[in-house]
C-alpha cells in the first residue's frame, strides 16, 4: 500500500552552528557531524548537553544531546546519547473503518526516526594530524494501525497497531589535518559502513533511512586566533559556511558566529541560518544558538510530498521547525595543565661522587625548557639520580617568559655516605614543576656514576680526597706527633709547624715502600688511609695523603700542579711554615728552598715545596721539591705561563 519514499540518511548539521574546531568550548566535544574524526582539544573530561525548543505550532522543549568525553593521552573517546535527534511523522494512512452507526474510525500511522547514541574514538598522531572513527546507532520505528476482525457472536472490526523496527548501525572514519594555525582541513566518510540490526517487511523497507555513501570535506581558515571561517561540503552537494569571531572578556572567551546552510532537499537555496553566541572559560562553556529557516515551517504537509522528497537529515530537513538551543559544556581537568615542557636535556659530565659539594654550584646537566603558556612561569627543576640520591634534589627556580625558552641548570648533592668503588651506568629523572602538584613534564637520561676513588684529573679537585679522610689523618697525625711532644714543646713556637711537617713526613715515608708510576691509573686517587694501607701510591696519592695529615693538624698546605709535559703531569705539596721571611734563616740559608706567599691579611709567609714521592726523608724531599719548584715554576716561568699552578687546599 505504501510506495517508495526518497529518504536520505543523517548527514552533517550542527544545532550550535559550525565553529572553528577546538577554538571554543562550545565546539561540541561530541560532534560527529562537523568534527568527523571526533578529536577535541579537551584535556581530560568533558560533559556536553544540548537543550532546546522546537517552535512548531506549539513549543516543545527537549534534551537534544548529552555526551561524555575523555582524553587518554593522545586518545580521545566520546559517548553520546541523543534523545532529541528524532523526527516523527504522523498521518492517517488512508484507511478507515465504517462502524455500525455509520461513523468513521480512521487508521493512523507514525514513522519515527531516531539517532539514539553514538561512540567516537580518535587518536592524535601529531599536533597536526588526528584520525578517528564514529559508530552511531539509529532506530526507525514504523507504527501502522491496521484493521482487525473479531469473529465472535457478532462480527466487528477493530484497529490493531503493528510495529516494524528497522534499526541499524552506521560507522564512519574521519581525519583532521592542521598544517598551520591558519588552516585546518577535515575529511570523513558518510555511511561508510552500515549494518541492519533487524530485517523488516519489504513494504516498510522502502521508508528506511537510505545509506547512500558519500564524503564530507571541511576547511577552516583562521587569519587570527579571534577569527574563523569554516566551510563544509558534502558530495551530495549540501554545504554549510560559518563565520566566527572571538574576543576575550571577563576571564573568558566570547564568541559570536553565524552559519548558513544549503540543503538540496529544502528551499530556498540558503535554507536557513544558525546564529550563535558563546562564552567559555577553562571550566565551562555556554552557548545560545538558534536555527532559523527561511521557509514557513508551520504549513500543511502532504504525505505525497513526504513520499516524493523524504528527508536527508533527522534534525535538519524540510519538516524541521525553527529552534532555540542552549549548549552547556563542562570541562573537568584532573590532569594538571602543562605549563612548561622539556625540549632537550644535556648531561654535562659524568658524576664523580668524591666531588660532593662541587655539584652544589656547578650543574651536572642543563635542560632547554619552553614556557607553553601566555604568562610568566616559574619553573621548578628537580632531579633524582638513581643509585645516588634518595629523593628529588631541587635546583633553583627559573623564570621563563611567555612562550619563551630558557636553559635550566640541574644541581645535585652527593651523600657523604656514598662509598661505591665501582663505576656504573645509571639514569637521572628530570622533573619540571610549576605548581606543588605533579610535574608538568619529566625526562630521563642515562648517566655514568664513577667510583668514590675516581678523579677527573683536575688537581684542584684533589682537595676532596684530602678532606674525605680527615678523621683518619687526624688520628694518625696526632698519634705521631704525640710521640714528639717533649721536643715540640721545648722548641721555638715559630719553628713548630716546620718541625711537625718534618716529623709527619719522616714518619709517613717510613711506612711506605714504593712510589707508583705516575702515569698509572691517572683517574684513580687513593684516600690517605688506603695509601697507608697499601704502603704506596703515585704523586697524587702521596700528595693527598701528606697534605691530609698536615691539614688535619692545622698546617696549611697547597698542591703544586705541574701541568702535563709529554703527557705526564705531577703534583707535590707546598707547606706553609707560617715563618716570616726574616725567620726563614731558622730553617735554611738557601733562599731557593722556600717560596714567599702573602696570607689573607697580606703578610708574607714562608712556604716550602716537598716532593712526596721522595720516600727517603724530609730533607731530601724538601730539596727535590724545592729544586723542581725552582726549575719549573720560577726559572722556566711556569707560574707566569700557567704551566705550574698552586692550588690551595682550603
Amino acid at each position: 500500500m505504501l510506495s517508495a519514499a526518497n529518504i536520505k540518511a543523517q548527514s552533517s548539521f550542527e544545532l550550535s552552528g559550525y565553529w572553528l574546531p577546538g577554538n571554543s568550548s562550545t565546539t561540541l566535544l561530541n560532534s560527529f557531524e562537523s568534527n568527523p574524526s571526533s578529536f577535541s582539544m579537551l584535556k581530560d573530561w568533558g560533559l556536553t548537553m544540548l537543550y532546546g525548543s522546537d517552535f512548531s505550532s506549539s513549543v516543545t522543549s527537549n534534551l537534544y544531546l548529552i555526551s561524555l568525553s575523555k582524553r587518554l593521552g593522545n586518545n580521545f573517546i566520546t559517548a553520546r546519547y541523543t534523545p532529541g535527534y528524532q523526527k516523527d511523522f504522523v498521518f492517517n494512512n488512508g484507511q478507515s473503518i465504517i462502524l455500525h452507526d455509520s461513523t468513521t474510525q480512521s487508521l493512523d500511522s507514525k514513522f519515527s526516526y531516531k539517532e539514539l547514541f553514538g561512540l567516537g574514538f580518535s587518536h592524535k598522531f601529531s599536533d597536526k594530524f588526528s584520525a578517528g572513527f564514529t559508530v552511531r546507532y539509529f532506530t526507525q520505528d514504523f507504527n501502522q494501525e491496521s484493521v482487525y476482525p473479531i469473529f465472535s457472536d457478532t462480527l466487528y472490526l477493530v484497529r490493531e497497531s503493528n510495529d516494524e523496527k528497522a534499526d541499524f548501525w552506521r560507522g564512519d572514519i574521519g581525519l583532521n589535518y592542521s598544517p598551520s594555525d591558519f588552516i585546518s582541513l577535515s575529511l570523513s566518510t558518510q555511511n561508510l559502513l552500515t549494518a541492519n540490526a533487524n530485517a523488516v517487511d519489504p513494504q516498510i523497507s522502502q521508508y528506511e533511512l537510505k545509506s547512500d555513501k558519500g564524503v564530507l570535506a571541511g576547511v577552516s581558515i583562521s587569519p587570527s586566533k579571534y577569527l574563523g571561517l569554516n566551510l563544509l561540503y558534502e558530495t551530495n552537494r549540501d554545504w554549510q559556511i560559518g563565520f566566527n569571531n572571538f574576543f576575550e572578556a571577563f576571564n573568558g572567551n566570547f564568541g559570536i558566529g553565524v552559519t548558513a546552510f544549503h540543503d538540496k532537499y529544502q528551499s530556498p537555496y540558503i535554507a536557513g541560518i544558525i546564529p550563535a553566541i558563546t562564552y567559555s572559560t577553562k571550566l565551562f562553556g555556554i552557548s545560545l544558538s538558534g536555527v532559523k529557516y527561511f521557509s514557513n515551517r508551520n504549513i500543511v504537509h502532504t504525505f505525497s510530498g513526504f513520499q516524493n522528497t523524504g528527508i536527508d537529515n533527522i534534525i535538519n530537513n524540510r519538516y524541521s521547525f525553527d529552534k532555540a538551543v542552549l549548549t552547556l559544556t563542562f570541562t573537568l581537568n584532573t590532569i594538571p595543565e602543562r605549563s612548561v615542557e622539556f625540549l632537550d636535556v644535556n648531561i654535562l659530565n659524568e658524576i664523580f661522587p668524591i666531588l660532593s659539594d662541587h655539584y652544589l654550584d656547578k650543574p651536572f646537566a642543563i635542560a632547554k625548557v619552553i614556557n607553553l603558556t601566555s604568562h610568566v612561569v616559574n619553573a621548578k627543576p628537580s632531579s633524582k639520580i638513581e643509585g645516588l640520591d634518595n629523593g628529588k634534589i631541587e635546583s633553583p627556580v627559573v623564570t621563563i617568559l611567555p612562550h619563551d625558552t630558557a636553559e635550566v641548570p640541574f644541581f645535585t648533592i652527593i651523600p657523604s655516605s656514598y662509598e661505591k668503588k665501582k663505576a656504573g651506568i645509571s639514569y637521572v629523572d628530570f622533573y619540571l614543576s610549576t605548581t606543588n602538584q605533579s610535574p608538568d613534564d619529566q625526562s630521563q637520561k642515562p648517566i655514568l656514576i664513577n667510583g668514590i676513588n675516581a678523579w677527573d684529573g683536575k688537581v684542584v679537585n684533589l682537595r676532596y680526597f684530602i678532606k674525605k679522610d680527615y678523621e683518619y689523618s687526624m688520628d694518625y697525625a696526632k698519634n705521631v706527633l704525640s710521640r714528639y711532644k717533649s721536643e715540640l714543646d721545648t722548641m721555638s713556637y715559630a719553628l713548630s709547624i716546620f718541625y711537625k711537617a718534618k716529623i709527619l713526613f719522616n714518619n709517613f715515608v717510613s711506612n711506605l715502600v714504593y712510589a707508583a708510576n705516575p702515569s698509572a691509573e691517572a683517574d684513580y686517587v687513593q684516600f690517605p688511609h688506603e695509601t697507608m694501607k697499601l704502603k704506596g701510591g703515585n704523586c697524587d696519592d702521596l700528595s693527598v695523603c701528606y697534605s691530609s695529615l698536615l691539614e688535619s693538624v692545622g698546617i696549611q698546605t697547597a698542591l703544586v700542579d705541574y701541568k702535563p709535559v709529554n703527557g705526564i703531569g705531577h703534583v707535590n705539596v707546598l707547606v706553609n711554615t707560617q715563618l716570616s721571611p726574616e725567620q726563614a734563616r731558622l730553617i735554611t740559608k738557601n733562599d731557593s728552598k722556600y717560596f714567599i706567599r702573602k696570607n689573607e691579611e697580606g703578610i708574607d709567609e714562608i712556604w716550602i715545596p716537598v716532593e712526596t714521592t721522595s720516600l727517603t726523608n724530609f730533607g731530601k724531599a724538601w730539596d727535590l721539591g724545592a729544586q723542581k719548584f725552582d726549575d719549573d715554576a720560577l726559572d722556566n716561568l711556569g707560574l707566569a705561563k700557567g704551566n705550574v699552578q698552586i692550588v690551595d687546599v682550603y
Partner: protein
Amino acid sequence: MKKLIFYLNALILFAAGFILSSCNNPAPTELVQDNSSTQNQVQYEVITKDPTDAAYSNGFDTTGVTTVIPPNVYFINISGTKVSENNSTRKFSFAQAIFTDKSHPIMGMGGRIVGYGTSAPGVLRFNGITADSTPYRIKFSYNGNVLDSLLGNMFILNNQFNFNYGSQVHIQYYSERGMHGNPIGSPIDFYVPTPKEINGSVRITGHLANKSLTGEVEWNNWNPADSVDLILGVATKQGSTFPLFKIRTLDKGKLIIPPKLLNDIPAAQFNKFVFTFVRRIRIIRNNPHGQALFVFSQSIHSIIIDIP
C-alpha cells in the same frame, strides 16, 4: 581532592536533574493525505454482523448483487454482472426498480419498522424491454429467528436485456398501464450511463490452517478519483454465501487485502472465498413528487475460489 569530588557530584546532580526535566520528544510533523498520494484510500465496513444469520444474505446472491437498498427512496439498480468460478465465467444483466411509499411503514414484531410499502404501478422499460412486476420480500432477524415480510411489488428485469458497459441504458416509465399491460400516456424517460466493465483477479497464497494467507486483488482501473467496492465474502460447503466485509477503495486497480481479514474467518464453517468487485455510477434524480430517485449503474465481477 575534596574539592574535586564536590565538583563532580554537583555536576552529576545537575546533569541528572537536567535529563529528568527534559523528557519531551520533539514535535512530530502531521502529514495529510492528498489525491496525488500513492497510498490507497480504503474504508472497511462489516456487512454481516452474524455470518451465520441468513437474514443478512439479503442482497448477496450468486449474482453478486450486494447493494443495500435504501428503505425509503425510489430506487433503480442496473447491473452487468459476471461470476467466475473454476475457470469459467457466467454473465448476467439485472435491472430492478423499487418505489417506496414513505407514508406506509411496515411494522415488524415488537413495533419496529422493518421497511416501507412498495408498489409497481405503470410500466417500466429498460432499453425498451418491459420489466416484470414481482413481489418484494425482505428478511430480517427477530429474537434469533429469521422472518420475512412482503413489502409490496417491485420491477425486475433479470438477464433479459443487454448491459452495454461504458455506454448507457435507456429508461422509460409510464405511470399507467392498459388492460393488457400496455403503457398509457407519455413516459418519463432518461438515460443512465454505465461504467466501464470491471475485470478482477485474485491471488491468494499461504494456508488458512496456519494463518499465513495473503491476498492481493487487481482489476482494470478506470477513474482513480472514483471508488470501487470490494466485497469479501465466504461460502459454505452447502453453497450459501455470506458477505463479510465491504472494502471501498479508489479505482486504481490494485489492493492488498489485510491478512487478518482472511486468516481470522472461522475455518470450520466456510470453504470458499467470494470476492466481488463493484464499479458503480450513482445518480440521484429529483422527481416531481418530491421523493428522490436513486439510480445505481454498476459493473460487478464476483470471483469464487476455494480457501487454501
